[in-house]
């Protein structure tokens, strides 16, 4: 499976990608929402996008809205991965079309739990 990791911090992209690789994901990275949309418009097909909220150029919420507006991308599972932890922010992201919401800091097990809930773990990797 393929995942797109969107975060303006290279370190954080590396951490998120590093938790996905052992779970069978090939990862692609983008430093903001616009760069991620460019990859998708360029033909990159992914099953999962892990999305930071606060980024320059295009933030994570705007990216979620843009992906949900295009029926061709309906199959992409969207998971926010962010330090934004207010109740209202989570509600906003879900209302915009995010499927899951993981709050930083997180453990690799928490990523696994979320992917299990989303049905994105390969056989034999269930928690």
């Amino acid at each position, binding site marked *: 499976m393929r995942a797109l990791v969107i975060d303006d911090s290279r370190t954080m992209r590396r951490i998120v990608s590093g938790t996905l690789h052992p779970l069978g994901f090939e990862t692609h990275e983008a430093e903001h929402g616009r760069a991620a949309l460019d990859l998708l418009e360029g033909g990159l097909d992914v099953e999962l996008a892990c999305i930071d909220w606060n980024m320059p150029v295009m933030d994570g919420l705007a990216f979620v809205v843009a992906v949900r507006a295009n029926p061709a991308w309906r199959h992409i599972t969207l998971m926010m991965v962010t330090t934004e932890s207010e*109740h209202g922010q989570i509600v906003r992201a*879900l209302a915009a079309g995010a499927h899951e919401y993981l*709050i930083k800091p*997180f*453990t690799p*097990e*928490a990523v696994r*739990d979320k992917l299990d*809930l989303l049905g994105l773990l390969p056989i034999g990797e269930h*928690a």
Partner: protein
Amino acid sequence: MTRLRAGARETDLTAVVEALTTNETSWFRDTSPFTALRSPVVPALLDARGASAHLRVWSAACSTGQEPYSIAMTLADALPPTATFDVLATDLSEQVLARARAGRYSQLEVNRGMPAPMLVRHLVRAGAEWEVVPHLRSRVTFRAHNLLDAPPPGGPFDVVFLRNVLIYFDLPTKRAILHRVRQVLRPDGALLLGAAETTIGIDDDWARVSVGAGSLYRPLDAGSVTAGIPAPRSAAPWTAPTPAVPVVPPSVLTRGAPR
């Protein structure tokens, strides 16, 4: 353990238990028991009891409360407004029960297996932590209980969650615990075990029913003594119950066990 069973002082016992017990837990741990609760368990119970049923669930070995609160969240979402429920949550450890009663969890804890839509519906921020909403907390009663003792009051139950705890006991003890659970589970009720656990080869009085990736267990009619309620002879509510057929020779599973 011999000394504990022989009746060591309560404080000793509590201290040893706190040290020995692993309280590693996450919200919808394994996911499949909660999926099974949502369907087929709840719809079948509503069919049998009517839309204004009151369902009772026992969460045994509930640790810091994630399991009973996950059960309460599932029922709150799955039941019609006319139906009601309560959850009895028991654990050996007073320390974890105190945490469970508070219903407060750190950010790291709510990250573990809690679906975001459930989080925003059933928990609110409390400073740096999250707190289960009072309405849901009021549906769960916590009580200290040892699975080696008689079943707790509050039954009979429609559903019993007994997950990842049988593994700590020897075979005769597992069998005795399952017998006691049968005493307080309604004849059309459901038992949910941990993903790596089964009644097969331990206690033949259960039928395994496959549900998605997991299983649930229902008491077989034969010899059923369920808190004075006679076992129904009518069709069981579950579809296609599978007889408890061991997947490996029983001799392997029950070696050394009294028959």
